[in-house]
C-alpha cells in the first residue's frame, strides 16, 4: 500500500507570493490500484506525482510504502520503486539512439553497464519480440532513430521502457496529452495492458475528462493543493462526464476551482 500522511509542499515560502502545491494531503492507494487524478492548472497534481517520485521533497509529512517510510529506503531502491512518464514524447526516450538501443538500455540492470556490445544477440531477439508484441508499426524498424518516430510511437516506447525496470508504481503525467485521440486511445490500451500484466499501482494525471471517466478504478479531483473529490470504484463505474461536471459545480461553494478547459 502507498500511503501519504499529512504531506505538504509550498513553493517560494520565503518570497512575497508563496504557492501551496500540496495542503497537508493524506491519501492511501492499495497495491494494483489504477487511480486517475484530475484538476485545474496549478492544483498540485504534478507536485503530487513528483513527491512520490522523489524529485520534489515535501516540507512536511510522510510517504509510506508497505508501512515503511520512503526516506528510509536506500536511494537506488527509492528510485526503482516508481517510474514516471511525462507529457512530452521526447522525455522518456533518447532521441539520437535507435529503437533497439533505447529498449536495450532499459533492459540493463539498473546502473550497471559493461564494455560489451549493447545490442547483442540475446537482446536483439528480445527486442524483436517486444516490437512484435507492442504492435505500434515498428516491426523491422529497430534501427530507426527515435527522433524519426511519431509522438505516439515514442510515447508507447517510453511507457514500455519505464515498466521494463520493474517499478512497483507507475506515474503518468498527462502522458497522452500530446497525441491525437486515436493514438491516445492506443497508448491507453497499452497502459492498461501493462498495468494488468504487472500488477502495477498506477497514478495517472490527465486533463481529459473523457479519459478520466473511462479508465481506472478510482478518481481524485484536486484543487488548490487539496483533494476535493475521491470517487471509488463502484461510484466511478456509473460516472459520466456530465455527472462529473455537476459534481464540480457543487464543490465550487467549498472553494473548488474548475478549470475553464473542463467546461463545455
Amino acid at each position, binding site marked *: 500500500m502507498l500511503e501519504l500522511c499529512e504531506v505538504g509542499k509550498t513553493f517560494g515560502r520565503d518570497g512575497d507570493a508563496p504557492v501551496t502545491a500540496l495542503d497537508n494531503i493524506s491519501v492511501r492507494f492499495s497495491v494494483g490500484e489504477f487511480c486517475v487524478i484530475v484538476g485545474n492548472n496549478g492544483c498540485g497534481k504534478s507536485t503530487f506525482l513528483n513527491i512520490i517520485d522523489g524529485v520534489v521533497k515535501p516540507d512536511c509529512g510522510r510517504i509510506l510504502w508497505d508501512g515503511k517510510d520512503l526516506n528510509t529506503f536506500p536511494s537506488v531502491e527509492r528510485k526503482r520503486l516508481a517510474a*514516471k512518464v511525462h507529457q512530452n514524447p521526447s522525455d522518456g526516450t533518447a532521441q*539520437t*539512439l*535507435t529503437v533497439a*538501443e533505447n529498449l536495450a538500455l532499459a533492459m540493463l540492470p539498473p546502473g*550497471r553497464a559493461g564494455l*560489451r*556490445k*549493447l545490442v547483442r544477440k540475446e537482446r536483439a531477439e528480445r527486442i524483436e519480440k517486444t516490437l512484435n508484441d507492442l504492435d505500434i508499426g515498428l516491426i523491422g524498424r529497430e534501427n530507426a532513430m527515435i527522433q524519426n518516430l511519431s509522438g505516439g510511437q515514442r510515447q508507447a516506447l517510453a511507457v514500455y521502457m519505464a515498466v521494463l525496470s520493474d517499478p512497483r508504481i507507475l506515474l503518468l503525467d498527462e502522458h497522452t496529452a500530446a497525441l491525437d485521440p486515436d493514438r491516445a486511445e492506443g497508448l491507453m490500451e497499452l497502459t492498461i495492458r501493462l498495468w494488468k500484466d504487472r500488477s502495477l499501482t498506477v497514478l495517472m494525471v490527465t486533463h481529459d475528462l473523457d479519459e478520466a471517466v473511462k479508465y481506472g478504478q478510482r478518481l481524485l479531483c484536486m484543487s488548490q493543493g487539496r483533494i476535493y473529490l475521491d470517487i471509488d470504484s463502484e461510484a466511478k463505474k456509473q460516472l459520466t462526464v456530465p455527472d462529473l461536471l455537476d459534481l464540480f459545480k457543487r464543490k465550487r461553494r467549498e472553494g473548488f476551482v474548475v478549470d475553464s478547459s473542463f467546461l463545455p
Partner: protein
Amino acid sequence: MIGIAEATLLQGFALGLLVLGLAISFRFLDFPDLTVDGSFVLGAATGAHAIRIGIPVIVALLMAVGAGFIAGCCTGLLHSRFRLSKLLSGILMMIALYSVNFRVMGASNLSLLQSRTLPDYFSHAMGFGTIGVIVFFGFSAICAKIVLDLILRSEWGSVLRTVGDNETLATSLGFSTSRMKIIGLGLANSLVALSGTLVSQYQGFADISMGIGMIIVGVASLIIGEAVVQTLPRRLRGSSIVQRRTTAALIGALVYQLIVNVTLRLGIAPTDLKLITALLVIIAVMIGRTREYAFAGIDRY
C-alpha cells in the same frame, strides 16, 4: 619543403585525434568543452618534458594521454560536483592549464630536436621519411576511431550517449550522470592530449601558445566533416550515428587541413586564415541545413 598532400595528411591525421575527442564532448556528451586549448598543450608539454628527461617515448606518450584524461575529469568535476556551467568549467580549466603547462615545461618553449621522438623512429630510424610518419599518424587516428566506435556502441558508451541526449532518462535508468560526464570528458581530453604530443613531437618542440585556437580548428573540422559525410553513400559513411560522427571527425580534419594548406599556398596571408575558417564553417552549416535529420544539431554551437 613538403607538398600540399603530405602536409594535409600529416596535420589532418594528427589533429584528427583532437577532432575525435571533440566529437565525444561536443556531440555525444552535448558538452561544449573549452578545456581543449589547454589540454592540447598539456599533452605536448607532458610528453616533451618526459622525453627530455629520458623517459621512453611510449611511456611519455601514455603520460601525456593520462594528463589529458585528468584535465578532462577536472572539467567534468567542476561542472557536475561544483555546479559550474559547462562553458565556465571549460574556460576555467583552460586558463588554469596555461599556468600548469608553464610549470610542466619550465619555459614557454621546449625543444625536442635533440631527442629521439616517435615520428623520428618512423621517418629516420626505419628509413621511410615523411611517408613513415604519415602512415604512423594515419594508423593511430584510424585505430582510435575504430576503438571509439566499439566503446560508444557498448553498454557503457550507449549510456554515455544517453547522458548527452536525455539526462533524466539516464538517471531513471539508475546511472550517475556526473560520473559518466567526468569520465567522458576525461576520454575526450586524453585524445586531445594525444594529438598535442604527436604534433609537438613531429614539429620538434612544444610551445605554450600552440593550443590557442585549437577549439575553433576542431569545431570547424567537425562541422565541415559532417557536411561532407552527408554527401557520401550510405555504405561509406557507416550505418550508425556513431560511425557517421567519428567518420565525419576524421574526414573533417583532413578536409580542413587541405583547405588551410591550399589557401596558404595561394599566397593568402596566414592572418586571414581565421576569416576564411569562419566563412567555411558558415558554408558547412548551410550545406548541413539543406539535408534534414542526417545530422541532428549540425549547427548547435
